[in-house]
């Protein structure tokens, strides 16, 4: 059924008893043209674009738990394309363009809201860096504006402008940035892929790879062996664990990132605001909760929960940036497992094992990349060629030296 105002009216008149399931619950077939491991945002987007852009419909998405139960359901829902380096910016701008057309494309209300993102700066040096970044964005076709202090005082009067140590001097704004209803991204892609014939198989954990003469020809799962000409892996924090089954060691560490939401408040924060003097960012959800976060905990972790020192650190950042936040009560906090790469940038590449493809290393920036990642990974799976905006996301870039280190902190994943 196509979702529209008419379908809502029609179903409303029938007491909402006629809605069909949003996607099927099929049993796995013995073999597929392609399998995608991981039913998160990236895996489901990959499946959708494989089916819609490349005509590959005999494919399956295998998910260990339920779809959208991992990082696509655990992030802070921000979309943006304000990157500096050429290897990144073109990709994230493609992703932002795909966000802009997502709801029409998948016929699902993902509540894409381009309410703008502001990165604050506090010194002349930070202003110079922000101007440089903005120019880099504009060169890649994105939008960027420098706000001065007066603009900001009008837009966000609640900020702590006159802090003695870190006075707020302005910000780099991307008006097309914003936020999205994160769960709806997973559900929208799943439903759209399912309508094109993709099998979405939940509660299906991959336990190993089926190899034949050094080539990957399928996977072993807790629901039996499933063969595939091509296998794509998009499992974020579990990447090292899954790929160890193919004998690969990767330039990835898994770390826990916490996120927080306050009680619901009246409309308060106009868009997304990031602090330039500490790691803190905040936005307000459509339900009114303040959604915020900061640094990763900083040690290897596969636990989807963090520890209290980072909670304190994030809340200190919030108090320093906007003291009014101290009046709001914290409602919920949670953790997700980030596949932190050695230079802070992702991989969308073939692996040394023929037939096995990898999409990983998104660090804590995977949500905004969801459509672009699916688009480029589908392109790689279908054509065996890297997409033109993703040619830098190579798995062997630490050997060749062509790293993409936005932050310039070197091979130290907990500092990216």
């Amino acid at each position, binding site marked *: 059924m196509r979702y529209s105002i008419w379908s809502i009216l029609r179903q409303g008149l029938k007491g909402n008893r006629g809605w069909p399931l949003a996607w099927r619950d099929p049993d796995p077939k013995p073999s597929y043209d392609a399998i995608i491991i991981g039913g998160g945002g990236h895996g489901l987007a990959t499946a959708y674009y494989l089916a819609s852009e490349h005509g590959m419909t005999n494919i399956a998405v295998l998910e260990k738990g339920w779809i959208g139960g991992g990082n696509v359901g655990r992030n802070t829902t921000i979309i943006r394309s304000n990157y500096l380096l050429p290897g990144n910016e073109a990709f994230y701008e493609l992703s932002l363009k795909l966000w802009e057309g997502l709801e029409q494309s998948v016929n699902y209300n993902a509540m894409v809201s381009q309410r703008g993102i502001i990165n604050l700066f506090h010194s002349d040096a930070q202003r110079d860096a922000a101007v440089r970044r903005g120019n880099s964005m504009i060169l890649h076709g994105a939008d960027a504006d420098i706000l001065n202090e007066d603009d900001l005082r009008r837009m966000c009067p609640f900020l702590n402008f006159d802090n003695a140590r870190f006075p707020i001097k302005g910000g780099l704004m991307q008006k097309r940035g914003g936020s999205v209803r994160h769960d709806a991204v997973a559900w929208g892609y799943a439903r759209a892929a399912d309508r094109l014939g993709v099998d979405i198989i939940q509660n299906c954990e991959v336990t190993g790879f089926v190899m034949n003469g050094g080539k990957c020809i399928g996977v072993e799962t807790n629901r039996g062996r499933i063969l595939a000409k091509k296998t794509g892996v998009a499992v974020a924090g579990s990447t090292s664990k899954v790929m160890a089954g193919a004998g690969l060691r990767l330039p*990835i560490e*898994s770390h826990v990132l916490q996120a927080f939401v306050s009680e619901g408040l009246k409309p308060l924060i106009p868009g997304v605001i990031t602090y330039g003097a500490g790691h803190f960012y905040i936005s307000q959800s459509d339900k009114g909760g303040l959604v915020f976060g900061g640094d990763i905990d900083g040690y290897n972790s596969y*636990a989807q929960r963090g520890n209290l020192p980072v909670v304190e650190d994030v809340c200190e950042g919030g108090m320093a940036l906007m003291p009014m936040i101290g009046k709001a009560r914290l409602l919920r906090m949670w953790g997700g497992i980030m596949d932190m790469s050695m230079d802070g940038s992702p991989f969308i590449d073939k692996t040394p094992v023929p037939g096995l493809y990898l999409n990983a290393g998104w660090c804590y920036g995977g949500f905004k990349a969801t459509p672009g990642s699916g688009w480029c990974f589908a392109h790689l799976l279908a054509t065996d060629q890297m997409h033109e905006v993703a040619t830098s996301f190579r798995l062997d870039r630490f050997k060749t030296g062509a790293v993409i280190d936005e932050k310039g902190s070197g091979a130290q994943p907990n500092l990216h």
Partner: protein
Amino acid sequence: MIIPHPLLGPRDASEFTYLGDASLLLRPDAPVGDPTTQTMTAFHDYIHLRDNPHGVHRELWFHEQGDRSWLVVTRHVSSHEILSVELASEAKKPRKNTSKANVKTKPQKGGKR
């Protein structure tokens, strides 16, 4: 997390700085002169590749806000339970002459959470 320091007793993890996998103690010889593929590969693997296990992990913590010693902490990365702690200088001694990157030693008993 509370890290039971071998010399100072239980200390809060926020006093420490985290480096990563304890295999970083076993630095291979840097490629000298004309680097051969083999020494380059060994150095690349040392700097950039990680086992990143889902379970027990031996890792390096630096007591930056304390006695500035390096510790090897054996910790379960799913429960955050600390199984054992030793001084990195002690941990490195018995493996001085091995070349294998991820030799596991027996964790010391008696570490408290």
